[in-house]
């Protein structure tokens, strides 16, 4: 089963995720330009980080109207695993596939540094091989990464087990309840602000860790089980 990475104008982590899937995990993966309206044959879709359309108007809002997003929505409803990382998370929120909003960080600045997240829900395709409360060392790099939703939505997210990752005592964004990643109700659509593709090879980690490769490995074992 192939994995598709959507490339929007201004995406800039597309090749990084491609590198991890192809060169580290040896999975058949394609980079897909956003103009296509057919995603047949792809078992999972990744919306990468970056600055789609230069973050104009608002991060992710223009990309949410890209031709390919209609097809992404169809796949989302069919239960296909879809992961949005950083700007990809923002696009998922702007397209209505995930609730809430990503606001400017408390520091009002772009922040690039390593932190820790804990796994809050392992019922998603991206976390099912992880243990609840398992900690992952992973970096963030964003300016609009502060997750916000109204209290009722937050309550629903907590009750439905839709909060997938939380920052562990070190939230660079200032999110409500330290939220670093959420899923839709079904659990197949996940958005996260930290960058798993930057924490999947020990050589790139200041701690020699490759914790986040488990997120991609989870997906692969999930896809295997589906077959």
């Amino acid at each position, binding site marked *: 089963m192939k994995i598709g990475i959507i490339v929007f104008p201004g995406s800039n982590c597309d090749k990084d995720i491609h590198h991890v899937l192809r060169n580290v995990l040896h999975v058949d993966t394609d980079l897909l330009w956003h103009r296509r309206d057919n995603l047949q044959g792809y078992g999972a879709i990744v919306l990468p980080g970056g*600055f789609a359309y230069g973050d104009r108007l608002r991060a992710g809002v223009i990309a949410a109207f890209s031709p390919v997003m209609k097809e992404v929505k169809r796949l989302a409803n069919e239960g296909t695993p879809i992961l949005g990382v950083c700007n990809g998370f923002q696009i998922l929120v702007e397209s209505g596939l995930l609730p809430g909003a990503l606001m400017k960080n408390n520091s009002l600045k772009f922040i*690039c540094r390593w932190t820790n997240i804990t796994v809050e829900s392992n019922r998603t395709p991206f976390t099912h091989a992880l243990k609840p409360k398992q900690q992952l060392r992973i970096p963030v790099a964003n*300016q609009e990464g502060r997750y916000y939703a109204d209290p009722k939505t937050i309550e629903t997210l907590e009750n439905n087990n839709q909060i997938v990752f939380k920052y562990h005592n070190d939230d660079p964004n200032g999110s409500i309840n330290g939220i670093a990643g959420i899923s839709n109700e079904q659990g197949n659509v996940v958005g996260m602000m930290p960058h798993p593709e930057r924490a999947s090879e020990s050589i790139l980690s200041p701690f020699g860790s490759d914790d986040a490769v488990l997120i991609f490995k989870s997906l692969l074992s999930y896809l295997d089980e589906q077959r």
Partner: protein
Amino acid sequence: MSLTQEELVYLKNELKRQPNEVELSIVEAEWSEHCSYKSSKPFLKLLPTQGKRVLVGPGYDAGVLDVGNGYVITVHIESHNHPSAVEPYGGAATGVGGVIRDILSMGTRPIAVLDALRFGNIEKDSHARWLFKHVVRGIADYGNCIGIPTVGGEVEFDSSFENYCLVDVASVGIGKTEDIITTNADREDYVVLAGGSTGRDGIHGASFASKALEAENRSAVQIPDPFLEKLLIEATIDAINVKCVKAVKDLGGGGLSCCLSETADKVRKGIEVDIAKMHVREHGMTPAELMISESQERMLYIADKAHLEQLISILNKYEISYSIIGKVQDHGNLVVKYNSNLVATMPASLVANAPLANRNAKRPRYIDELATVKKPSQPSDLNTILLKMLSNPTIASKRWVYQQYDHEVGVRTVVKPGHAGASVLKLDNGKFLAIKLDGNCKHCYLDPYYGSMGCFAEACRNVINVGAEPIGMVDHLQFGNPEDPEIFWAFTEALKGVSDYSKAMNIPCVGGKVSFYNESNKGPIKPSPVIGVLGLIDDMSWIRTSMVREDDTLFIIGSTKDEMGGSEYYEYIHGIVGGNVPKVDPVYDSRIMQTVLNLIGNKLVNAAHDCSKGGLAVTVAEMCILGNVGAKIDLSKVPNECSRKDELLFSESHSRFILSIEKDKISKVTSMLEDSSVPYGIIGKVQGNSIIFSKNSSVVDISIDKAEDAWVNMIEELVEHG
């Protein structure tokens, strides 16, 4: 009009007629100091540019170094000083954009950005703080958006930059040897201008940068659009991959004038364009304005008839605007039409090669006057002094800066900013590239020769710290008005220092830039050469950071001398400008560096850090803070020619490293050091929670927490709350 009387006469004689208004504008842009190097060109020949890895040296948009296995890296450095001093956000951002397009012009993908920044005293001067804050934001917003990591750099503060700033940006690219574009063109090939529309922003930018900054000229500053730059990067790489372009050239200083004349001159052809075909962002622009506008994010491509359609379809994919503005011809002239009207026609080689300016050089009196100064009395409380040194903005952690930069995008950044002397990037051929920029205006002011040689040596030490062998350098030489003989003397001395070291160390210069007229109403800046050194690491296991490990033994390599001139200790603590500047003996320096590299290559070293700004005391403190553990140092074990404890602690003598060595490797290290006969001392141990220096009795004793507090938070405190 910035052409001199002599230049005008020369132009008239060459053309054998009066130039018209448009022609004058074109020539004025291209013959500006910024574009033509008319003052510096004869001197730049001093720099050695050949080497076993050099495929393309200076003179192209970027230098090209062979890193093996069919791969090359490209490197270039530029500055955007004048624009940043007037409009720090846009000036700095467009500086990043410009140097990225130079890397692209060689047919390589940009993979990293570094920046060297200089500002006034941010502790006292709120304008300097404002410039600093917005320059960093400009670099961050641009670099982050285009997805090229800003992996390193340096920041220096000095009151000579009051009302001004220096913003130097270097970029590195990677590509396959076969994809390198060295520009060729044939008759009837198409000239395509793509990217941003042309407007009135940045009119006279090159001329603006070739005069002292007197009045704020905001219209000479360009407007950044990183999103468009990102599209241009991807489109250009696509075009290179399918080999549909014969030449790629970015539009920078001097706009279309420089781009066309330099391209035509390089391929020894002519170019004929109709500038009425350009896509513009405002109506009513005159031909002269169209030719010299420095609107950003524009690229010129040359494609033959067979490949034009392929190029156009790539530009269409990315929805990039373009205009087919003309064709290559054999006549060697730059011919500019506006619709059917001929508005300019001149030999491209005439436009591209300004007559050289003869500058006089005179040794300034202050050099000898400041060479000797009365030594300050030694402070009794050196604890406070070390803490003050650590919080000195020039020395303090630059975390506030580099955390605003996405330094990890591209999944190549193996050694990240703040962890070691240099940043290390993973290359596509399995090797690793180390890179560092260094400058020291305080040393260079007092002694431009040894000062600039020292910057070069420091950058070399920094790449050696991480286990890399230096393979090439780029230089950016920044001074005031070259028409002032004393300033020009400093330039010639600095260049000699750089070229002498380059020859002695066999590290070729692969590119560079000279920037003059760096003056504000407060006068000229201190001479500020910035040297970038690239190093190659073959084996991942050689990579080292500055992080010490508990129970390690600390060695110092090299001798500490009474060389306090231009030191942070003299200037920041005592307010003394003067004294003898640290000298470099390239033979001795080379021996020290080779020895350290051998030790690292033999896997005998846990961490390495050189001594530079702030001296031994600051180096040890930084290593301890990074390792989050203390150290106990016996100063009497430090090889030295000093008479005082403060000199031992804070002298900035070159050719020194601190190495953190595991217990069972001490004897092996010692015997290798004895064999290479370099001065060294086993000075102490990594242990406890305090940084302790003693010499018979205690000299300094501060807790790690206090040191970290002083070092880590100062810049953020000043900028956010100052």
